[in-house]
């Protein structure tokens, strides 16, 4: 039919599957390392991980993090160490979500969620305080009224990741890039990345695979 073939194609498309995602109602699964807004994590016993060292503030290229550390009150310590961050603010009008703060953090205190849909209506709301950034007692991020969370989104938020090679070690291939988080539940770590073969799917990462790499286990064990 030649010329008229196009009509067959368009008619056939009538019965094809739709490619549209009805966005606000349904959301596509987000990539495993998506950089969203931050959370400040806590240990299982409720202690805060942040030790107020200000490394995140120092490394931040946008200068959007403001941290002040203070000595822990001896009778009611906030964090397990000597000091804790008693002021912790991130200005999201400035943050570029580069995740350098996450890399800099020695205690995995600050990580990023996958929430990027937070449209605040005034400048005060743009500055998230420590109370807003801290996870709640379940380890879930506290949803602010202007943030668009969908059901189940907060279960895939915490995870400490290295965007670049750990400790300056360029040979990061095949190593687990982030550790399981002691936040809401314990999840298997992200499958190791590979420059050549592309990323394997996140759910196809059996936990025992990581036992083969003692280095990762050690590091995780040290810090907890």
């Amino acid at each position, binding site marked *: 039919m030649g010329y008229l073939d196009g009509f067959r194609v*368009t*008619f056939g*498309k009538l019965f094809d*599957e*739709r490619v*549209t995602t*009805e966005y606000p109602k349904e959301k596509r699964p987000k990539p495993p390392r998506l950089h969203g807004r931050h959370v400040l994590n806590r240990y299982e016993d409720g202690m805060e991980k942040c030790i107020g060292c200000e490394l995140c503030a120092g490394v931040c290229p946008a200068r959007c993090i403001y941290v002040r550390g203070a000595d822990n009150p001896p009778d009611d310590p906030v964090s397990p160490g000597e000091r804790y961050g008693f002021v912790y603010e991130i200005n999201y009008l400035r943050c570029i979500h580069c995740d350098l703060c996450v890399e800099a953090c020695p205690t995995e205190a600050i990580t990023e969620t996958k929430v990027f849909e937070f449209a605040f209506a005034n400048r005060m709301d743009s500055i998230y305080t420590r109370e807003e950034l801290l996870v709640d007692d379940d380890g879930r991020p506290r949803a602010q009224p202007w943030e668009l969370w969908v059901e189940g989104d907060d279960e895939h938020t915490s995870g400490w990741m290295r965007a670049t090679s750990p400790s300056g070690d360029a040979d990061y291939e095949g190593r687990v890039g982030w550790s399981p988080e002691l936040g809401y539940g314990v999840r298997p770590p992200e499958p190791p990345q590979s420059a050549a073969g592309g990323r394997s799917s996140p759910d196809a990462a059996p936990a025992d695979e990581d036992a083969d790499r003692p280095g990762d286990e050690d590091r995780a064990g040290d810090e907890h």
Partner: protein
Amino acid sequence: MGDPLFVDGVDWGDAAIVGVKVVIAFALLLVATMLMVWFERKVISDMQNRIGPNVAGPWGILQTFADGVKFFFKEDLRPVNADPLVFRLAPYISAVTAFLAFAIVPVGGVFRDTGAVTGTITIFGKETFAQVADPPAGILFLLAVSSIAVYGVMLAGWSSGSKYPLLGAVRASAQAVSYEAALGLSVVTVVLVAGTLRTNGIVAAQADGITSWGILTTGLIAFVIFLISATAELNRPPFDLVEAEQELVGGFHTEYSAIRFALFYLAEFMNVITMSAIMVTLFFGGPAGPVWFDLTWLWPTVWFMAKVLVFLFTFVWFRATLPRLRYDQLMGLGWKILIPLALGWALVISAVRLRNTYDWNVWLTLAIGVGLLVPATGLVVAAIGAGDRAYSRELADAGSEPSRE
């Protein structure tokens, strides 16, 4: 053969019935237009693997309504350079002619090919045609009204005082004039076969089952020509150069906003419905179709709407499938192919009609016909070829000029 309503003189009751018919047609057309906009958006998104409007109402069916309300509340802008009176007048010319054209379409009633008055329905105990008007000029009325609609477009483009609308309007009028000829010539074949200009009579002539439908009695070619010319006449894709976004912004209605733009939009889609209805009337037996359960008032209208829907779908299908023509291709198709073809086909049909009427010798008629048509076709082809050669020579000359300097 006129409307049986007026046979025994006209009283207030008759006038009221006509008024009711007008109101029904008006409302029906408005609702149909609303649904047509939604239908087009929905079908075209289906053909593009999208979902389309789905928020307002079930399946997004109220989307057009929401858009219409929005148009009412938008600011009505008028450019400084625009001609105030004509700028305001133009949308109404388009909208009013779009409404008028539908008046002659029979939308229901049972037709029988008996020579008596048929195709009537009963309103308030009175028999009348299921169409707003049945003028003796019939289908000519449609051509006249659709020609006036070009004024709406032309005046809108000219009065905007802006270059893109003007270019769009020039294209629109040139296109409409070109394709109106082919359209009219393909209507001629239907009129020849039916022997009347009245739409009611044309439908009555097709009441004898599918073999009596216009598409077969006029030999398919007339229908194809009509379909193509109608698409061009409606400025629908692939002939929508009038509002080619990439070249002309919005075409003739670039400077229009708010409810005046809505009127153009309304007229455009209403014309699509009218043209589909005309096609059904001329070539597909109008409301003809089987009647079940003695529901004579219902089935013809249902059949009519079903047939119209097929053509509405076809127009959307065209839009989803075909890329837009270049302007010279558009004009070439109209003048060099469709008009000669329509003219020749009208001659063939009239020759056949004459032979049948006067019972001429088949072979002699055929020989004379072929003997006349072949040289005529040859002349047309030679003329078009000569024109093309002259044009390409001109192009070549123009192209070589800079190198001579």
